[in-house]
């Protein structure tokens, strides 16, 4: 689909300040076609600012940013972009079909090559799982259904750049999985997907690439597997009578926290820790040792960053 090989979104040295607060402190980032790039990070890390810059809703204080070779927010860039915003609404008086048809019309005159332009209405409705809701008014839909209409508007123009800001917020488990599947299909079509989420299982299930932001900088960038492997630690869960302070003092342990009735330990040397643990507490039960989840890895990386 892409004639040129330049990444659809290219950011270099992006800086954005709000008064004295620096939201982005020099970010370099390429968003590749055909891949799902997920922005992760705690609140205030700069995710929304980065999304706002890519969509042209904010101006950068320094650095350069291009969307399909155009200035972000320009009509040319908007024609290549589909977006789902975090806090958005559509006119409640119009039906789902009317909304999707109207938005599809915006993309219809991207004349350059035949492969672009809006997708057929029925396809858009099917991708967003809205076939049965087409004649309903937007205002009569549930929150999750409304979110799916917004998703339909983002994808109807076959965008080269698809920006999804917390797309699954407010969706139930089934809708979330259906949306993941649709996002995957859009990336396979060649779209460069930029997705923010605070759900790590979502990033793990969907992302080809995770970009971890903290304090306005990129602190980690790689596949979910690479991010996990950057943190060699393992997790140990068990039922134990030992106090947390004593657990934290065990060899190899970096953290110990209560998890309901259980205790969760993070260790850099699982075997040594376990030997010491079993020796110290003969009554220990329900022992479980697992590798690093993406969530553990992200928390570790963020912790390392702030200390």
């Amino acid at each position, binding site marked *: 689909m892409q004639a040129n090989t330049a990444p659809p979104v290219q950011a270099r040295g992006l800086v954005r300040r709000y008064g004295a607060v620096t939201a982005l402190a020099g970010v370099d980032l390429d968003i590749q076609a055909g891949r799902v790039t997920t922005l992760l990070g705690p609140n205030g890390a700069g995710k929304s600012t980065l999304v706002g810059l890519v*969509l*042209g*809703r*904010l*101006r950068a204080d320094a650095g350069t940013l291009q969307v399909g070779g155009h200035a972000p*927010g320009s*009509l040319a860039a*908007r*024609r290549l*972009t589909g*977006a789902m*915003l975090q*806090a*958005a*609404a*559509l*006119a409640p*008086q*119009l039906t789902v079909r*009317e909304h999707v*048809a*109207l*938005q599809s*019309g*915006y*993309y*219809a*005159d*991207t004349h350059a090559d035949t492969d672009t332009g809006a997708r057929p209405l029925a396809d858009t409705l099917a991708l967003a799982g809205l076939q049965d809701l087409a004649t309903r*008014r937007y205002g009569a839909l549930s929150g999750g259904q409304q979110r799916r209409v*917004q998703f339909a*508007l983002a994808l109807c*123009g076959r965008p080269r750049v698809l920006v999804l800001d917390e797309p699954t917020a407010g969706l139930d488990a089934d809708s979330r999985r259906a949306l993941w599947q649709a996002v995957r299909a859009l990336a396979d079509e060649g779209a460069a997907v930029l997705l923010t989420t605070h759900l790590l299982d979502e990033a793990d299930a969907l992302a080809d690439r995770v970009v971890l932001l903290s304090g306005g900088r990129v602190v980690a960038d790689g596949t979910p597997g690479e991010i996990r492997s950057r943190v060699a630690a393992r997790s140990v869960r068990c039922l134990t009578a030992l106090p947390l302070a004593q657990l934290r003092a065990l060899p190899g342990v970096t953290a110990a926290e209560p998890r309901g009735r259980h205790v969760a330990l993070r260790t850099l040397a699982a075997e040594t820790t376990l030997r010491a643990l079993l020796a110290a507490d003969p009554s220990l039960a329900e022992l479980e040792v697992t590798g690093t989840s993406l969530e553990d890895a992200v928390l570790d990386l963020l912790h390392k960053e702030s200390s």
Partner: protein
Amino acid sequence: MNSWNLLWHETVAEWRKAWRQPAFAIPTLVLPLAFYALFGIVLARPGGGNAAYLMATYGVFASLGPALFAFGAGIAHEREVGQLALKQVAPLPVPLYLGAKLLTCMGFTALVIVALYALAAWGGGVVLPRATWLQLALVHLLAAVPMGLLGLVVGLSFGASAAMGVTNLVFLGLAVLGGLWIPVFLFPGWMQALSQAMPSYHLAELALAVSGRDIAGSALGHGAAALGFTLAFAAAVAWAWRRAHR
């Protein structure tokens, strides 16, 4: 899809949005008609010429409701709930979005003035040559443009609840000081001076001139003033849009 097609679809969508909120649309349509029926027909001296005079000024008044309330205060609401943000990131050229709003405004105005003319002709016994009716309709329809632009400036500059308050003030100012309800020549001198600063005054004088009345000043002068207001409001919309974007 070319721009005209896009403008048409956007206008249809705007029209549906307005029309499917009857609680909003109906008062906008009914208020000028009810006022005219009361002051232009019921309370007027028969044969005093009030029906024809007030028809000219109420036609301008008819454009105020849709322009200021439905589309001015309406866009403030759309901005607040996040509807505008989605339009701003969508590949819809800004002039088409705002143009669709203005056209819808004119559509509503057209509905009211047609009903107003019918009321004046049958209820008020107003008789005008056919060409005059058409010229009057043109002035009344075009009045929706500066009024719609003014509504957008207010809607883009204030939050939803503040916009409602400001809109009410602007609405009353334009109606009263513009001489749409009471002829300006009955005002004391200082109020007449204020009237000069109202776009609605110049539009009303233009409508009166077209319907064959003697007016203060030349029709050309009032036309130039109306055009000046339109251009100033258009510039203000462009400025307010850029500010609302951030």
